[in-house]
């Protein structure tokens, strides 16, 4: 139970494995929240939580799956606090588009990225885990704490939505549920209506 039960070598193993999954945590986080800076903040938060909870990690099991659960919980908590809204990060998509040469079809990754961010978070997450992270449906269900059938259904719906958006080229410009932006605009309007517009604020 106590921290002293972990030997120094066990702790070193843990840290080595934790270090190894950081690139994957960054990729998963980027897919979840869509912005590189916020994603990296999230990963740092998850790393600290994982380190603090290392006694709960079963050596020999998948560090990637274990840390994804922690990352996901941190993301959901932040979502509830409205910190993240799937915002489209233009810079990331551009860099990806111009960086690696050699793929067969110059698929429009910026379109794909934008389309992904219009999906409901739980479908985007399921598709990321299975379609990008290479997890099985069972593993993804464990990470998300839901039934395998639920994951299959979410992945299926996500795929169908992406197929429709990408074949029609009909991708919304922004996340559909961007209430933060809407609320900000409404609040500004209220301010203006109350005579507290920008001009009178100085």
């Amino acid at each position: 139970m106590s921290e002293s039960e972990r030997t120094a070598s066990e702790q070193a193993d843990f840290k080595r494995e934790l270090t190894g999954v950081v690139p994957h945590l960054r990729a998963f986080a980027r897919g979840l929240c869509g912005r590189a800076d916020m994603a990296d903040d999230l990963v740092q938060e998850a790393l600290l939580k994982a380190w603090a909870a290392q006694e709960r990690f079963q050596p020999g099991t998948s560090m990637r799956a274990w840390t994804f659960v922690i990352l996901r919980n941190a993301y959901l908590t932040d979502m509830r606090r409205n910190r993240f809204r799937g915002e489209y990060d233009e810079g990331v998509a551009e860099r990806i588009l111009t960086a690696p040469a050699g793929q067969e079809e110059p698929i429009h990754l910026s379109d794909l990225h934008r389309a992904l961010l219009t999906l409901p978070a739980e479908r985007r997450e399921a598709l990321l885990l299975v379609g990008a992270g290479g997890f099985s449906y069972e593993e993804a269900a464990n990470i998300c704490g839901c039934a395998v059938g639920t994951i299959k259904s979410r992945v299926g719906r996500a795929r169908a939505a992406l197929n429709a958006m990408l074949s029609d080229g009909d991708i919304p410009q922004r996340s559909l549920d961007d209430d933060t932006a809407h609320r900000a605009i409404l609040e500004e309007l209220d301010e203006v209506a109350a005579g507290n517009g920008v001009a009178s604020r100085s």
Partner: protein
Amino acid sequence: MMPDRFKTNDQASPAVRPGDKSEKDNPEWANGLRQLYDSVVEEPLPDTFKDLLSQLDAKA
């Protein structure tokens, strides 16, 4: 960079290359999805992470 032990149970490594025809069931964007993910995995780790990892031992 990645421990071998992790690599063995990591199916996300680009074993299936973009354009691999064994992925014939998947639409075109499926490879793109993996590319988006892999491109982040392959990014060099920012110094902030190296710093954080090196500070962890002090927090044990």
